[in-house]
């Protein structure tokens, strides 16, 4: 399949452009072997319908993942993952974060076609989970996990128990009772609206008493939370919007009870139930949560569950909490070092970028101390455990920072205006009482309750949930996930944006390679390509990939020997490796590079550099217009020139910062009155994200680990952050318009109340009308604006 605009080949399975290689199979093009295999697997099992919908894309299986799932066959460990077991039949619920569309559900629920050992599978989409029942005599659990990985859904085994059930059932129950009462009472009140009189006293009384009975659960169950919140605020000597709401509700209810028991009719019971019903709908709308995302992960989610332990000549799987000091463990390529330990193998290359922010790979020699958290690149290494994982440097750091102050004096706009609201209501009520004392003092209680009833800020209370709730949903569709709606107000108030460098401004995994030195011929590049083909060292792999991407090298066979940690030498005298390997003085060459030599003559070097994320320079420049900017990085200052040009003058740059120093820097800024938005991605930013006014974590694919934060942004959409923040700023305006409308309704109502013309019928019309206008307005204003990227993703 070809993309008509760019003329690049688009993969039939994953719809990504095929940049590296093109594989043709059964008249379709594929970008990699993984995609081809998934296609093959699906078409062999008559699941070709998966492709019948051209707009839904498959997932490119992660070819670098060499994870093994032996842990699922270990009787002790698997116990915490399986739901139940009856003979050979096992039910297991797996978290598959890659689930993203309707096709995924189709594929996963037809697993039994791919493997007869699967008896049944059922997807829970909001939780990104799949419950699978298998017959273990036909397929082992590790094979099941392997099968899922093969079709692109790699199970995530971290912290299964932490996946909470967030559909708030209590709120739904409350909503149910309120809706029931609202509908029933309004129906029974119809004769009242149409002017029923004392001729039908029996009926009037019956409907009034029934209304009273039905309203009881609404008052004591559905409205509970508003009362609690109002009393809580009073006890804490603050004001919030629930206080005028509570006053209004109680005034409404008491007035209605009085009407019912003095045989005047059902009073305002219909308004009362409608009122609670609408408020609860607002609350329900605001309570949108992203169930499959975790905003509060701790370090245990980052570490593997088990590692391979060597015992004499044998190896076995061992859960990491059971590792003891002195154990020998084996860590393979791409695996994470679970605890502080001593290197037993000769050499190791470790990627600490996620942990410390250092972008270069670190080379370690036998006998060196290795800290937990790093990722092994290249060959398998053996380690001897020095400290258990819960006591390692990394987790110590984590344990220090539990202190996110939930109560940092932040008050939402809604609560701030409530104080004026309460004052105005009391003023109007007193004014009306004084005025009526000259006209007809008997009417005073009636007038005062009427004022309290119509001044109840129902529409006002709906403005925030619907404005911000809509914005949050809209941002969520663009890959910007907020923990809750108060984060929107927090972002509006931020004055200073602090960036991390490694993994935030620069790409996390890909390094750009640059060749410096005498020009190379194409044959020489082909030779370099050939000798790096089977290498294990990450530098060699990076060079190999770079050559493949920049030019189309010829495949050739060239025998080469790799010297671990030093370099590669080919049979025809080509050498690629460290400075000392090609015969140069190592101490003078500290930058991260590989040297190339032919017949002992050094031709040049391949330099590895961090590459900037796409579009990040424009984004930073745009953000600099309204905010102060800083960079804090754990890396050395060598990339300063790369990033400085697009930062406005006066920005702060801090390099070689430890995680603790980063946190202190944020604290210092906030003490000087700044409100900081911290953007980071790694474990080293965890402290800073936590103490910042808003912590924003970047995530490459929403699958990988992110430190706990207030918001998660898809890394590829960082370039659109200025647009998102501008949209969030516009939210203030949207809210003001909604507020103005709802206050207008309140004023109209107060006009009726003060003049003594408020009847239950007027209240019944005014209240839903104001709520519906405000909800409609908020929805229209927030959804009108288009946000990039313009292709929607499903949440």
């Amino acid at each position, binding site marked *: 399949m070809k993309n008509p605009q760019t003329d690049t080949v688009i993969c039939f399975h994953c719809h990504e452009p095929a940049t590296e290689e093109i594989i043709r199979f059964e008249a379709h093009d594929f970008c990699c072997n993984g995609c081809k295999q998934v296609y093959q697997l699906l078409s062999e099992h008559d699941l070709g319908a998966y492709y019948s919908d051209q707009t839904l894309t498959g997932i490119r299986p992660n070819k670098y993942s060499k994870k093994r799932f032996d842990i699922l066959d270990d009787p002790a460990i698997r116990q915490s993952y399986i739901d139940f077991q009856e003979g050979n039949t096992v039910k297991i619920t797996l978290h598959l974060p890659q689930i993203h569309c309707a096709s995924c559900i189709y594929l996963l629920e037809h697993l039994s076609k791919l493997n007869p050992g699967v008896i049944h599978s059922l997807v829970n989409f909001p939780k990104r989970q799949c419950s699978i029942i298998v017959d273990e005599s036909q397929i082992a659990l590790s094979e099941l996990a392997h099968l899922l990985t093969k079709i692109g859904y790699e199970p995530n085994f971290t912290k299964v128990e932490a996946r909470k059930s967030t559909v708030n059932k209590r709120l739904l129950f409350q909503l149910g009772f309120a809706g029931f009462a609202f509908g*029933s009472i309004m129906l029974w009140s119809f004769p009242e609206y149409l002017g029923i009189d004392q001729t039908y006293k029996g009926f009037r009384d019956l409907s009034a008493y029934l209304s009273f009975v039905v309203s009881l659960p609404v008052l004591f169950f559905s409205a509970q939370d508003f009362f609690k919140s109002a009393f809580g605020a009073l006890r804490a000597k603050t004001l919030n919007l629930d206080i005028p709401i509570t006053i209004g509700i109680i005034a409404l209810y008491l007035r209605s009870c009085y009407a019912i028991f003095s045989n005047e009719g059902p009073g305002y019971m219909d308004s009362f139930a409608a009122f609670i019903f609408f408020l609860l709908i607002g609350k329900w709308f605001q309570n949108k949560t992203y169930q499959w995302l975790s905003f509060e992960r701790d370090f245990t989610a980052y570490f593997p569950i088990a590692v391979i332990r060597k015992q004499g000549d044998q190896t076995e799987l061992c859960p990491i909490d059971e590792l003891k000091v002195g154990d020998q463990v084996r860590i393979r390529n791409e695996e994470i070092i679970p605890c502080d330990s001593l290197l037993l193998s000769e050499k190791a290359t470790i990627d600490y970028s996620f942990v410390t922010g250092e972008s270069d790979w670190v080379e370690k020699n036998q006998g060196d101390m290795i800290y937990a958290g790093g990722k092994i690149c290249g060959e398998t290494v053996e380690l001897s455990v020095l400290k258990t994982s819960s006591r390692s440097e990394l987790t110590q750091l984590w344990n220090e920072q539990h202190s996110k102050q939930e109560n940092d004096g932040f008050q939402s706009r809604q609560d701030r205006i409530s104080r004026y609201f309460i004052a105005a209501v009391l003023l109007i009520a007193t004014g009306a009482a004084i005025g009526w004392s000259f006209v007809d003092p008997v009417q005073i209680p009636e007038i005062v309750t009427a004022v309290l009833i119509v001044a109840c800020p129902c529409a006002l209370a709906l403005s925030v949930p619907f404005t911000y709730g809509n914005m949050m949903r809209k941002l969520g569709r663009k890959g910007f996930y907020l923990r809750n709606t108060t984060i929107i107000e927090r972002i509006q108030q931020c004055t200073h944006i602090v960036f991390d460098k490694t993994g935030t401004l620069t790409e996390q995994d890909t390094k750009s390679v640059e060749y410096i030195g005498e020009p190379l011929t194409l044959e020489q590049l082909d030779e370099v390509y050939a000798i790096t083909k089977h290498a294990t060292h990450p530098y060699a792999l990076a060079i190999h990939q770079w050559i493949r991407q920049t030019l189309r090298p010829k495949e050739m066979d060239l025998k080469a020997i790799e010297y671990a940690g030093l370099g590669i030498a080919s049979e025809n005298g080509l050498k690629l490796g460290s400075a000392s390997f090609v015969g140069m003085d190592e101490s003078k060459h500290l930058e991260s590079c590989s040297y190339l030599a032919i017949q002992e003559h050094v031709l040049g070097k391949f330099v590895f550099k961090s590459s900037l994320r796409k579009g990040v320079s424009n984004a930073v420049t745009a953000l600099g217009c309204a905010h102060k900017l800083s960079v804090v990085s754990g890396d050395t200052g060598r990339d300063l020139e790369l990033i400085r040009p697009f930062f406005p003058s006066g920005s702060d740059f801090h390099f070689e910062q430890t995680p603790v120093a980063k946190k202190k820097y944020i604290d210092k800024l906030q003490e000087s009155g700044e409100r900081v938005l911290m953007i980071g991605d790694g474990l080293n930013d965890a402290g800073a994200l936590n103490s910042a006014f808003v912590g924003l974590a970047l995530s490459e694919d929403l699958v990988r680990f992110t430190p706990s934060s207030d918001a998660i942004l898809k890394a590829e959409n960082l370039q659109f952050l200025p647009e998102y923040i501008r949209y969030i700023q516009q939210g203030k305006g949207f809210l003001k318009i909604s507020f103005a409308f709802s206050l207008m309704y309140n004023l109209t109502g107060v006009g009726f109340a003060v003049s003594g013309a408020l009847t239950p019928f007027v209240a019944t019309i005014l209240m839903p009308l104001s709520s519906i206008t405000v909800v409609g307005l908020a929805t229209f204003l927030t959804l009108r604006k288009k946000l990039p990227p313009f292709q929607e993703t499903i949440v």
Partner: protein
Amino acid sequence: MFYLLFRPVLCTMGMIYIMLIVSLCLAVFFLGIFLWATKTGQYDDDYSPSVRILYEDEPDQNESNQNNNGNTNG
């Protein structure tokens, strides 16, 4: 016979009493269903059932296209 028995009720205001009771029973019935559905977790996943119903073992072209339009689970 039936009509004669209920005639006094049906021909006066009594009718509206019956309506009142019926409406209450109906509302209670619906409330009960809603509470039961919530309790048994039928609102836990509001997306996959809508997709599942469209995928037969051998769906034809129209069916799978339709469910592309249904991705509004925001």
